């Protein structure tokens, strides 16, 4: 381990502070699943991913990460800043005119760390598979990671990709699902239930593991375990249970905070629950 679990939890706490401050600063954006995925992003970038912060688009010899549910950009931007891709002061520009930190991630403004635009849901798994195929052709043994929303899985393109990857033995791909059970119009179970996702992906030929995405130790161990499963002929799916809004009590367990910004009072209440560990931007 490069960091202790306590150190990783401290990083995640700062990322959570950044998320609520960024969304508050522009009075728009998506705090709910950003908070829910803060532990995953911390584990990925500070412990699991083999990556360089002097960014190149190709990322030869590096593990690559793709965010399909692009609306949770705040957690990614904060993680990239703390990992050293760009200065954290830039987080203050989130969603503002002339910023590199667009509402949804983009390559158009050349923000280091981003390799494809996302925001229109359901496209990221295909892109991750394409990047994985290119690595194979290049003889590059590095891994491809992706994150998808659970509601996002209602998009049919995911299932085209889900069918393709095992058939084509894309076995250096670890896709995680942010399994928070919420989407915009309500709980996923009420909008269009995903039912037994594990059985569905297994039926398509994936190796499925289950992790607790809000337990730092569990998520680090789960991702390390997922790595040991690569190279065995199957793509890996990490069904990661999370709480929307994790870390901010009044945002937890409801779809209401999917895409709503806190007001001044709510911001203060959120920050009181999230220790400032690395210094606010």
């Amino acid at each position, binding site marked *: 381990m490069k960091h202790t679990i306590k150190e990783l939890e401290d990083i995640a706490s700062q990322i959570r502070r950044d998320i609520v401050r960024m969304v508050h600063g522009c009075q728009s954006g998506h705090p709910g699943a950003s908070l829910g995925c803060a532990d995953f992003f911390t584990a990925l970038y500070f412990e699991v991913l083999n990556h360089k912060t002097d960014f190149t688009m190709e990322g030869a010899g590096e593990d690559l990460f793709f965010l399909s549910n692009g609306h949770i950009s705040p957690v990614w931007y904060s993680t990239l800043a703390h990992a050293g891709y760009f200065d954290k002061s830039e987080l203050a520009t989130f*969603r503002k005119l002339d910023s590199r930190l667009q509402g949804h991630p983009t390559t158009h403004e050349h923000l280091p760390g981003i390799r494809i635009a996302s925001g*229109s849901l359901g496209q990221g798994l295909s892109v991750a598979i394409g990047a994985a195929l290119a690595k194979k052709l290049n003889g590059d043994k590095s891994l491809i990671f992706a994150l998808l929303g659970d509601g996002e899985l209602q998009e049919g393109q995911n299932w085209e990709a889900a069918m393709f990857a095992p058939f084509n033995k894309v076995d250096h791909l670890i896709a995680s699902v942010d399994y928070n059970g919420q989407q915009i119009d309500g709980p996923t179970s009420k909008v269009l239930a995903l039912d037994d996702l594990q059985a569905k992906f297994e039926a398509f030929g994936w190796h499925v593991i289950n992790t607790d995405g809000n337990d730092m130790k569990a998520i680090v161990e789960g991702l390390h375990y997922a790595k040991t499963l690569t190279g065995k002929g199957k793509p890996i799916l990490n069904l990661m249970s999370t709480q929307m809004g994790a870390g901010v009590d009044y945002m937890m367990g409801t779809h209401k905070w999917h895409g709503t910004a806190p007001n001044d009072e709510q911001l203060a209440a959120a920050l009181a629950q999230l220790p400032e560990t690395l210094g606010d931007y």
Partner: protein
Amino acid sequence: MKKYTYTEKKDTRSGFGAGLHEAGKKNENVVALCADLVGSLKMDAFIKDFPERFTQVGIAEANMIGIAAGMTIGGKIPFTGTFANFSTGRVYDQIRQSVAYSNKNVKICASHAGLTLGEDGATHQILEDIGLMKMLPGMVVINPCDYNQTKAATMAIAEYEGPVYLRFGRPVIPVFTDPDQKFEIGKAWMVNEGTDVTIIATGHMVWKAIEAGEKLAELGIDAEIINIHTIKPLDDEAILKSVKKTGCVVTCEEHNKFGGLGESVARLLTTELPTPQEFVATNDTFGESGTPDQLMSKYGLDAVNIVEAVQKVIGRKK
């Protein structure tokens, strides 16, 4: 310049929600579908009163268009609702084959069109949808200018038989058209009669054209302002009549100048009555994050840009 005033500002998407509710009350064959954006599309009133006539399809727009097309076969009049980007580009072939080519009575209702979607940024800000949709044979394309006109348009398309694309937006803007207006598909609305230039505007740009008209009047320029809410079929007659009088035209739209209303007007004029024209539109670019006002200003879609275009085009008159 005729005086236009307003007492309130509302979003055009709320006009859609109100119109859908009314259409639902009038005709029990009206059904609605949504892809996980019920609140954004203002469908709540319809869903509350007609829960069994509402279908939540989840985040699956292609499936939604297909299901809507199928429902028409049972005599239903489906209104699909999602953002403009996911209503068009996302599902273009589903619309092309199952709706347009098959001539199905689907109403594709698209909110958050254009730059004024704001902070979500370019992935969500479609500036190409008018072009995409007007190119489909048989597709009616409508982009109303305020709450009242959007409500009236929504009710009118329920009574029209055939595929329709209805485009509206997110921001609150002045409500300045008649609440009891009769909406006639394909019929231009004369906002202001004038003699020096024809300003043709659609959607959110109509109020900006009125603001520009007032500024132009102060400069001694008498602008005729026409609201083209139906981009297809275009009201050729109204446009030709006006341009014959004024001799020059400025088109205004919250859309790429490639493929938009302006090009439809240019096509008409080149064949019937070649006329100097200027375009107030985005210039082959994607948008970005920002507030709606900041974006309209940065991308040249404000009243001042219309005034400048008018001055330029008048200079080009022979």
